[in-house]
Each structure stands twice: as structure tokens, then as C-alpha cells.
């Protein structure tokens, strides 16, 4: 079993609700693993899920795309074998990559080994932290079945994110990846990320160059 998230880049509107809901769920006041001791003074603190915004295409056909980026829970997670204490590990039963904070020495070697820059160092506790795929929610039997999924998936207003078992060929995530050419980031580095993205469909130009230049001339010249 390999639990994962598939994000449809056509549906993601960059609202960052997944980024915020991740922080909200995992901070949980003073007891959560994500440090948020000085939220106003330190707005750039730790985030386990970041929405990267890209402007793509060439003038005049440009567009903006959003890429939610959290731990990829790689099949060959490079952060796991480099850890000297075994604090970073990959669960055999569901494929989630986790960190045991009690045995992490804070050497940050796993941060170097991760190709995606999704591991963050907690200076106060002296350990490295990252997305857990909301493992506490997945295994909380007090929650209704429908809520046993990561906070970022549940909060997505456009249903751009789908959660499931990638190793199960009948699952929705496996179907999306196989039928819509889902891809992983930085494949040349060999980590085999389980988190996949569905490619954007090319959109026909909505405005031609002459019209655009005419409008620009009317407004600015």
C-alpha cells in the first residue's frame, strides 16, 4: 500500500486553503508539531505545505499555475537511508514517510537529501519536521470514514486533490495517474515520488496579439 495525493493542476486555483488548513490542523495550539509561537512576528515560519505560484507561457498567451508542494512520500525516499539514527523512516503498511522526533539529532542531512525542499528545521526543538500526510487523522477511528483523509485534501474547495492508495490499481488515484498521465516532480533525481500531479491542458489563446496591442494603445498611449 502506498497512500498518496494526486493534484489536478487544472483545478487548483491557488487559494492556499490546503496550506492554511495544514498549518491549522498540525499546529493545534501549543501542542501541535508545527511551531507557531510567534505567528505575527514570524509569518514566514514553518509550513509543511506550500503553494508555489508560477507564471507560464509566452506573451501574449501567459497564464498562472499553482503547484501545492508538500512531502512526496517517495517510494525510494532519499531522506530515509541518510538518517544516522533511524529517525526518518517509511512505514511498510501504508508507505507514509515519518520522523521520530525523539531519535532525531537535528543534523539536517535529510533536508539536504530531500530533492523537493519540503523538510523544515524546528530551531526550538532542534529536530526536522515535515508533512505526515495527517497520519493522526488517517488512523483516528473516532472520525467518520469520510474524514479520515489529510486536512489539505478535505479543505480543497475545487476538489483538485484526491487521496488514496496508489498501489491499488482500482483506486481513484491510480486511475487518475494512469489515464491522465500523472507525473512526479524532478524524476531525474530518482526518488520516485508517490505524490503525482495531473498536467494542465493547453488552453487556446483567448486574445490575439493585434487586439491586445489595440487595447494597450487605447489605454496607455
Amino acid at each position, binding site marked *: 500500500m502506498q497512500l498518496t495525493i494526486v493534484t489536478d493542476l487544472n483545478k487548483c486555483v491557488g487559494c492556499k486553503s490546503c496550506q492554511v488548513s495544514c498549518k491549522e490542523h498540525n499546529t493545534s495550539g501549543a501542542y501541535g508539531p508545527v511551531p507557531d509561537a510567534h505567528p505575527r512576528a514570524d509569518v514566514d515560519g514553518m509550513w509543511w505545505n506550500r503553494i508555489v505560484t508560477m507564471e507560464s507561457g*509566452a506573451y501574449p498567451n501567459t497564464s498562472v499555475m499553482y503547484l501545492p508542494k508538500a512531502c512526496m512520500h517517495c517510494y525510494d525516499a532519499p531522506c530515509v537511508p541518510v538518517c544516522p539514527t533511524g529517525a526518518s523512516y517509511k512505514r511498510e503498511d501504508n508507505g507514509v514517510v515519518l520522523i521520530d522526533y525523539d531519535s532525531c*539529532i537535528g543534523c539536517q542531512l535529510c533536508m539536504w537529501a530531500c530533492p523537493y*525542499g519540503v523538510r523544515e528545521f524546528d530551531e526550538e526543538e532542534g529536530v526536522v519536521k515535515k508533512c505526515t500526510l495527517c497520519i493522526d487523522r488517517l488512523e483516528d477511528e473516532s472520525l467518520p470514514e469520510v474524514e479520515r483523509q489529510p486536512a489539505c485534501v478535505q479543505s480543497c474547495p475545487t476538489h483538485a486533490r484526491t487521496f488514496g492508495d496508489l498501489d491499488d490499481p482500482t483506486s481513484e488515484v491510480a486511475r487518475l495517474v494512469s489515464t491522465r498521465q500523472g507525473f512526479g516532480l524532478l524524476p531525474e*533525481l530518482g526518488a520516485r515520488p508517490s505524490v503525482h500531479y495531473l498536467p494542465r491542458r493547453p488552453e487556446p489563446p483567448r486574445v490575439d496579439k493585434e487586439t491586445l496591442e489595440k487595447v494597450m494603445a487605447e489605454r496607455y*498611449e
Partner: protein
Amino acid sequence: MKPAPQLLVLTLGQGLAGGMTASVGFLASIGGLNHRLALLLLGAALFCAILGGGASFFHMHHFSAARYILRRLKTSWLSREALTTGLFGGTLFLLTVATVWGRLALNSPLYIALAWLVTFFGLVAIFVTAMLYASIPAMLSWHSPVTVLNLLAVGLLGGSGWGGFFGMVEHGPSGQLAAAVAIFLVVTGAVKAFQWHVFSLARHRIRATTGFGLPFAPYRLQDSGTTRAPYRTQTQVHPVISDGLRLRMAVVTAIFLTVLPIVLVILSQIAAEWGWMLGAAISITLGSIFERWLFFADATHSSRVFFADEPREASRVAEPVMRGRLS
């Protein structure tokens, strides 16, 4: 990335200690070792090893977990580094004690064998530390065999430089020591030049088109998720140094690490004065510090692609607007 002072001290101390121990082995093999010279070299090597070991200890941020450091010997180069560096430090200490004790003839086969054994442990420790950096594919600048060659060469150069100085002060075989320093100077210069080329290639691999796996181009990164990139919580994406600073540091490193020492070593042989060799050893040490700073500060990590470090290009969408304003 952001150079951590502890890692600078660790790698430099370990390299110097390994190099100085190699000098002891070399001098013992050619029969040029006297008691004071051995004590000076081993004492200096032990000092550097302790400095490096102490620095590596303080690179940890969660000391209570240090007892688990050897758990992943099978896969983790950091686990192996803790073991091999400890082994090197321990055997170096025992060799120093045996030398102070003075019962062992310095030119005896047993002492020579012990000196080379400790040297072997030292070289293994440097190799393992270098592999720690070289085996990380995401560290694009370091993921190359040149990293291993570089750390070994700089360590041996630094150690032989101080070996040459102590050898001249204690009337050892200065000509052979100077020849060894000269060989390491040439080798280190060549390796360093090749490594800077590898660093340059790594910098050019960081393009948004590879990081996002998308067919359209070009891309311009607008926002990395928060108001700025996570430079504090992710030190590996620390802003890349400017071209000017990189060039200045490379020139300073080349001068101190190779050019100036070559001149000083030649002068030391012409004038037969140890002062010139002292200058060469100090110059090599300073050059090693600059080299190591640049090694860490100029390293390119693959995740930079997501954090706005690609050279910025002005958006062509704004061109008509700007043109209108200018006219």
C-alpha cells in the same frame, strides 16, 4: 546553501589531522622522524582532530538522541562518519601516547606500521565524510567523485604543509617534504579547478522547466508559498552567492591555496629558512578555510528551483505598459 561553522571546522580539522598523520607515516618510512618532530606533528594532528570532533558534536541540535547515532551504519554515511572519525581520533590518541611514552623506536617497523595504520584510518574518515556529501543526488554541486578527491587533496595538502614546516624547524628531510607539498599543491589546484567547473554545471541545471515537469516554457516563479523563501527553516536553499562574490572568493582561494604557497615553498628551499615554509603552511590553511567556505556557500540544491533563485527575467506582458510609460 548556508555554511555551518561547525561543518567548516569539522571538515578542515579532520583533513588537517589526516594530512599531518600521513606526514608522520611518510617521515617514519624514509627514516626522517625524530622524537620532537613526531611529537609536534602528532600533537598538532590531535589538536585538529579534537577541534573537528568537538565541532561535529555541536552540529547536533538534539543531544539526547546522540546515543542512536550508529543505528544506520548499513545505509547512512553520517553513521559511518561518526564511527570512522571516532576510530581515527582514538588511534591517533594512542599513537601519540605511544610516542610520548618513548619506548618504541621511531624508525622501527612496528612504529612505521602503526603510523600508516592511523593514517589509513584518517584517510578513511576523510573519505567517508566526503562520501556523505558526494552521495546526495539533490546536492547537485557535490554529487560527483570530484568532491571526494577535493576533500582528500585539500586535507593532505594542509597536513603536508605543516609537516614541511615542522620538518624544517626540527632539521628533518626538508627537500623531500617540500617535494611532497609541491606535488599536493599541483594536484589540489587541478582538482579544485575541475570542481568549480562541476559547480558551474550544477548552477545551470536549476531551471523551472525541469523542476515542474511541464511541457510549456518559459516559466517565472512568482511566489514560493509565503512572503519569502524558507531560508531560516531550510538552510540548503539559502540565497545563492553573487557572481562577484563567487569570483572574488575563487581568486582569493586560488592565491592562498596554491599560487602563494608554491612561491613560498620554492623560496624556503632556496633560502633554507623555515620562515618561508611557515608562511606556506599558514597560506595553505587560510586557503583551505576560504575553499571550504566556498564549497558550502556555493553549493546548489535541487529544491532551489521552487524558491525563486532562478535568474529573474522581466515579464514580457508588462512590456507594452512600460513602453507606453517611457514614451
